[in-house]
């Protein structure tokens, strides 16, 4: 059964230095507050995993939390580059960042394999691309039935999966809807998991297209209203596009970023 705890307690309990951690969210329901709490608690040496690392990963990389990034598309959607990510890859600032690079289809299948308890997944993918030469977790595999050569990708090996959802009940059953990305796989594919939620309610009401992660599949639930901001939580608030645009000049400049980090993250307490 999930423990319903504060965000500070959940991160302290679940996320350790050197862990492999996925904070998932495909544009929608990005667990930004959880990422910033990991920064506040000073975690180091993390392997960060996500299809679409965007500004919360830029923040975590700039704060020195990560030693490696496993990803398929790293950018500030609709705005441009992640400058802290680029600075870490190109100049090793503040610490060198190793990368392991995939496509979305490959990463999605790596999550599926992890959630399925399999060592790898099979897809038609990567053929002819230079990703194959640089990424050891992509290998050809021959179909035992037809002889066709396909592509295998290794399952993700996740210590912690973190997602943000619209709501949970007091038993810790978690409900999310709208664009659900790979959130189910990130929770089921990890040894430990955290769901931050907009609200904890007495009883979950059915929603069209909603997915429920039963309480016994989630380690901790933390109520963090606004925990996906500046991304959005369908039914609660819209995407804050201005924040994404405003992030660009902050992340371009090490001093501006350092100032932002100390005043906006390190000086503030966790929301709950």
């Amino acid at each position, binding site marked *: 059964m999930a423990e319903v705890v504060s965000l500070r307690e959940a991160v302290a309990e679940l996320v350790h230095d050197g862990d492999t951690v996925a904070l998932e969210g495909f544009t929608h329901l990005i667990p930004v507050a959880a990422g910033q709490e990991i920064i506040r608690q000073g975690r180091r040496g993390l392997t960060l995993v996500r299809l679409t690392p965007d500004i919360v990963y830029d923040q975590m990389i700039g704060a020195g939390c990560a030693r490696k990034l496993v990803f398929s598309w790293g950018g500030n959607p609709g705005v441009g580059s992640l400058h802290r990510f680029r600075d870490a890859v190109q100049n090793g600032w503040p610490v060198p960042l190793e990368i392991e690079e995939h496509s979305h289809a490959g990463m999605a299948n790596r999550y599926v394999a992890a959630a399925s308890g399999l060592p790898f997944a099979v897809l038609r*993918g990567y053929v002819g691309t230079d990703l194959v030469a640089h990424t050891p977790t992509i290998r050809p595999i021959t179909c035992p039935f037809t002889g066709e050569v396909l592509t295998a990708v290794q399952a993700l090996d996740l210590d912690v999966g973190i997602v943000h959802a619209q709501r949970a009940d007091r038993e810790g059953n978690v409900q999310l809807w709208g664009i659900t990305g790979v959130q*189910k796989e990130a929770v089921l594919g990890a040894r430990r998991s955290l769901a931050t939620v907009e609200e904890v309610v007495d009883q979950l009401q059915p929603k069209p297209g909603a997915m429920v992660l039963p309480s016994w599949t989630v380690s901790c639930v933390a109520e963090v209203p606004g925990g996906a901001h500046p991304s959005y939580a369908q039914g609660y608030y819209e995407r804050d596009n*201005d924040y994404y645009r405003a992030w660009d000049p902050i992340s371009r400049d090490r001093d501006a970023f350092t100032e932002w980090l100390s005043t906006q993250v390190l000086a503030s307490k966790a929301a709950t």
Partner: protein
Amino acid sequence: MSGQQTAAQAARRGDWTADEMMSVAAARALRDGTACFVGIGLPSTAANLARRTHAPSLVLVYESGTIGAKPGWLPLSIGDGVLAETADAVVGVPEVFNYWLQPGRIQTGFLGAAQIDRFGNINTTVIGPDYRNPAVRLPGAGGAPEIAASCREVIVIVRQSRRTFVERVDFVTSFGYGGGPGDRERLGLRGSGPVLVITDLGVLEPDPGTCELTLTRLHPGVEVERAREATGWDLAVSSQVEASPPPTATELDTLRALEGATRRQP
């Protein structure tokens, strides 16, 4: 109505930008009733323009898992709420790639590029020869490698310049025709590859014999020489280069209304 008159006057005067011509040319290439896998930016603009003009039954599929999205404005990201709220179906990301893209259900893949080469190979990963120590780190692959492989055909939309149109891409993120004829078949890729490259200057198509991207169409007011100058290899030019019809008043009005609606979003 005044908007329409303005667009009509603009269309008559040829008062439109190269980017508008590019979006219009790309929109025209999409057939009604087909499904299209759409990336953010120029592809999304063109696909939404097509749906509002000649292709009302065009099915827009975004990699966020929104199938049949009908946004009222251009989303800033691939997963904006308006895509989920207006979609026929919303599925997870593993499903959109495994069930929908991989089996060849989607007719057209619509891609952008940071670099594209003579054989339509695309780079969105790194600029420079050393992957581990790049001159410029780009966002990466996203959904593009499998879109390029599995859609029945691929349309590329990209502004033409020597920086972008290079002899050989620094990194093959998405496979076009590799080194020439037969490479796609040899690798077992099922889709036919990039059939159109639409730029702000004109249109390139693969030569049926050599697979080399060849200039086949120029937008109004553009000379062949300008297209050559904006290409980093010795550009092949079709013996019969066609002229793109200029944007109609309806196309221009619809495109501007779409961009206006986008600007009014927070």
